[in-house]
Every structure is written in structure tokens, then in C-alpha cells.
């Protein structure tokens, strides 16, 4: 069932051509806007990938809300429904990240190129469940999109050393960008991966709890024989 849900979710999203083009173009626009500064360009590229994937996840989960409720009522597990859609989104996100990794490799001379792949991958792994959490807590497109806008815009402008930036979900992206671009020690890698692990776990758990609460049908007893 999991793979069928993931497959249908991929097809559904794949048919929204205009949305897919925008998902691809958004990180490119961020990257091109700061291409003169390597660190900034890669950080903004990664945040663009994260924003695009989180928005895709938000709209995918919101659009499937009614159908998922129907499927849950007739026997689908809310966990399988969430995981199936997340598998599709992570797959698309990683494909997008791989494309942009290729672009960075072709256009920049990065100190630790492999770390760029790592930071793009970790950003996708946070963004997909983050979009799901927002969609399950704010189950309307406009409210969800505004919430994501607030999170991502704050992430971009907050002082990276301040407590606010560290409390936001993609602080690890900034830390890993520093490790990839600058001649710094492995503490940036360690801190970035630790932050990623905590945030990814929190987002995944929150998305799972919200999915179960929203989709789990009432347990109804079978009729007593009359």
C-alpha cells in the first residue's frame, strides 16, 4: 500500500506542471541573485530548495486531505498515508537537490563539495516533513503558505549566531554551508548535523502525531446480534 500511495502521489504532483516549474525555478532565482558570493549563493540555494519542497509538501498534503480521510475510513493506515506521500516528496526533493548539486559543482570551486550535497540533502529531509506539519496544523493553503513564508523569511534574515535562528528549522543548512565553503573546523559539521537530527526527528514526530489525530477514524464496535 505504501508504494501505491507514493506512486499515485508522484503522478498527482507530476501532472501539476506549472507548480513543478516554479518549484525548480525558485532555488535557481535565489542562487542567481547571490551568485557573486559563494557562501551566500549556496545558502540561499539550499533555503530555496527547502522552501520549494516544504511548499510542495504543504499543497500535496492539503490537496489530499479529503481523499486521505476517505481512504482512512475504509481501512488505510494514517501512518502509511503520511509515509507514502512523504516518500514521494522526499524523492522529488532529492532529485531537485541532485540537479542543483550538479549546478554548484559545475559553476563553483567549493572547498568541500561533498558537504554541499549533504546540506542540500538534509534541507530536503527537513523541508518535506515540515510542510506536512504545517499542512496538518493549518489545513488551508493560504494560512499554511503564509506560515511557511514567515518561517523561511525569518530564517533568511535572522542573525545566524542568535537564539532565534537556532530555533528555526533550517539553521543546520547555514552551519553546513559554512563548513562546505569556509576553511573552518569540523565543529560546524557536528553542530549542523546535530541540529538537523533534532529538527528532522521533531518534524517527523509532529507530522506523524498530527496525521494520526486528523485521519484516524473512530473505532466503532460491531453490532451486537439482536
Amino acid at each position: 500500500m505504501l508504494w501505491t500511495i507514493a506512486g499515485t502521489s508522484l503522478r498527482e504532483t507530476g501532472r501539476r506542471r506549472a507548480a513543478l516549474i516554479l518549484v525548480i525555478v525558485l532555488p535557481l532565482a535565489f542562487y542567481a541573485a547571490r551568485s557573486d558570493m559563494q557562501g551566500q549563493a549556496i545558502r540561499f540555494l539550499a533555503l530555496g530548495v527547502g522552501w520549494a519542497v516544504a511548499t510542495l509538501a504543504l499543497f500535496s498534503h492539503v490537496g489530499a486531505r479529503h481523499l486521505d480521510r476517505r481512504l482512512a475510513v475504509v481501512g488505510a493506515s494514517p501512518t502509511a498515508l503520511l509515509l507514502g506521500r512523504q516518500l514521494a516528496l522526499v524523492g522529488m526533493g532529492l532529485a531537485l537537490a541532485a540537479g542543483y548539486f550538479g549546478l554548484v559543482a559545475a559553476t563553483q570551486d567549493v572547498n568541500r563539495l561533498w558537504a554541499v550535497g549533504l546540506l542540500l540533502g538534509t534541507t530536503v529531509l527537513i523541508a518535506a516533513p515540515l510542510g506536512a506539519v504545517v499542512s496538518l496544523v493549518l489545513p488551508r493553503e493560504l494560512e499554511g503558505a503564509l506560515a511557511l513564508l514567515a518561517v523561511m523569511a525569518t530564517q533568511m534574515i535572522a542573525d545566524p549566531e542568535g537564539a532565534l535562528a537556532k530555533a528555526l528549522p533550517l539553521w543546520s543548512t547555514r552551519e553546513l554551508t559554512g563548513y562546505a565553503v569556509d576553511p573552518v573546523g569540523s565543529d560546524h559539521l557536528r553542530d549542523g548535523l546535530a541540529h538537523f537530527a533534532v529538527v528532522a526527528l521533531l518534524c517527523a514526530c509532529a507530522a506523524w502525531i498530527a496525521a494520526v489525530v486528523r485521519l484516524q477514524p473512530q473505532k466503532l464496535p460491531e453490532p451486537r446480534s439482536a
Partner: protein
Amino acid sequence: MSGARWHESLARLLVERGVAPGEARRLAEDSRDEARAAGVDPAELFGPAAAYAAGMARAARPAPLAALTRTRGPVVLRLTKVVKRYRRREVLRGVDLTLRAGEVAAVVGANGSGKSTLLDICAGAAKATSGLVERAASIGYAPQQHGVAPYLTPEEHFRLFGAVHGMGSRRAVATGTHLAAGLGWRPRAGAVAARLSGGTQQKLNVVLGELNRPELILLDEPYQGFDQDSYLDLWTQVYAWRDAGAGVLVVTHLLHDLDRVDHVLELKGTEDR
């Protein structure tokens, strides 16, 4: 419309209405021969192709199996003093119903009387504020709105719902296509639900509700967008499910088909408190 185009149109419309392509071609050829023999334009002899196709499709459809001897089985749904309240507003007050396998119940009432809420409670999609809901485990559920995914084709819907019911992909598609033919519809490959007419989307919604041959089928105003033939086909299906041993609960606001149902539950709606 020229004679040739009329016949092409007839064959296409017959296929769309669930007639097998070979049979549709044969019927169109028969009509062409008849019009030629009469020496008149087919539109003049038979009228508009769409109307003629509707009648022919109905006649060409395989006759339903002879009615089974109806036996009422065990209780598949029992509602006991079910109440639903949204804050201060009481939507359902003390609803009682016992539905057995092999019976049809119609839930009627004005707009806002709580029909869809009751169906959601029976499905388990909403919780009753008080009262007892007992229900068979295997259900089919066709909600009034948002029952299908706009960017999936009918075949993909069949596979998805089939996977939930533990059916293989091929069996799910074959079952879905067969059930669709009973409603006078042959799903076209590659056409996503958003491109289907409202009535055809509703047929898909109904087919998904019965894909797993459930013990209890819950339908919320399933005929919206149906033409007259499809509407009659739906009620024929409802009684076929009943005769095959399913319990069927139909939410409706049309009162002229209630003489054959076993139970009519009228919801009055309640005032704000």
C-alpha cells in the same frame, strides 16, 4: 451533421456509456444500414445521436442477474440515541436506526438537517457527541464532495483504493471497470478526474465506494450531476447490492424513490440553543 459523422458519434457515445467497443461498432453499423434502407438522414430517422445512444446503451447493457431471493441478514448498522452537537448547535438529536444486511435505508431531510453529518458518524469520520454507533467492519463510503483526486485517472483511483483493500492492481482495475459499466460508464485511459464531467466524477466516487464488496455501503447524495438514465442505473445498483446481501444507507433529498426502501429516516434539523 452528416450521416457518417452521426454514426461515428453514435459509436463513440455508446462506448462512453459503457457498451463494449465491438458491440458499439455493430450497433452503429446496424443504425447506418437502417437509415440507408429508409433513404433518410440518420438524424432525421433516429434523432440526436446523444439521445439515441442513451437509449441504445441502456438496452444493450447486460441485464442484471435475476433478482436473488432477498434475505435479511445480521445487523450491519445500529444507531442508538445518537446526538451530535457543535458547540451550542445541536445537529442531530436522538437518532435511532437499525439496518440489516439485505436492506436499504434512506436518510432524508432538508438542507442543513444533518444528513451528511450522520453519514460521517456512521463512517467513523466524525464522532457522535453521545449515543451508540455499532457498525460492520467492512464498509464502502462515498462522500458528497471531494471523494476523488482531481489529478488521478480512474484506473489510478482503482489501484489506490484496491491497495487499501488488499486487492492486486489488475484485479482492482478489472473490478472498477466492471462496476463502472453497471453505471453506464467506460473509463477512458489517461483522462484525469478533473477532466471528467460532474456526473462521471460522481460515478467514479460511487464505484470506489463499492470496490471491495463491503457489508455496508454509505452513499451521500450519490446522484448529483447524473442524467436520468444514470440515476435509474444507480437505484438499480443499490437494489442489486441489497439483493447480494449488503446493507445500503443512502442520503438523499429526493423523495420519489423511497417506496422500495426498507427504512426512511427523516432528519428534521434542530434549532440553535
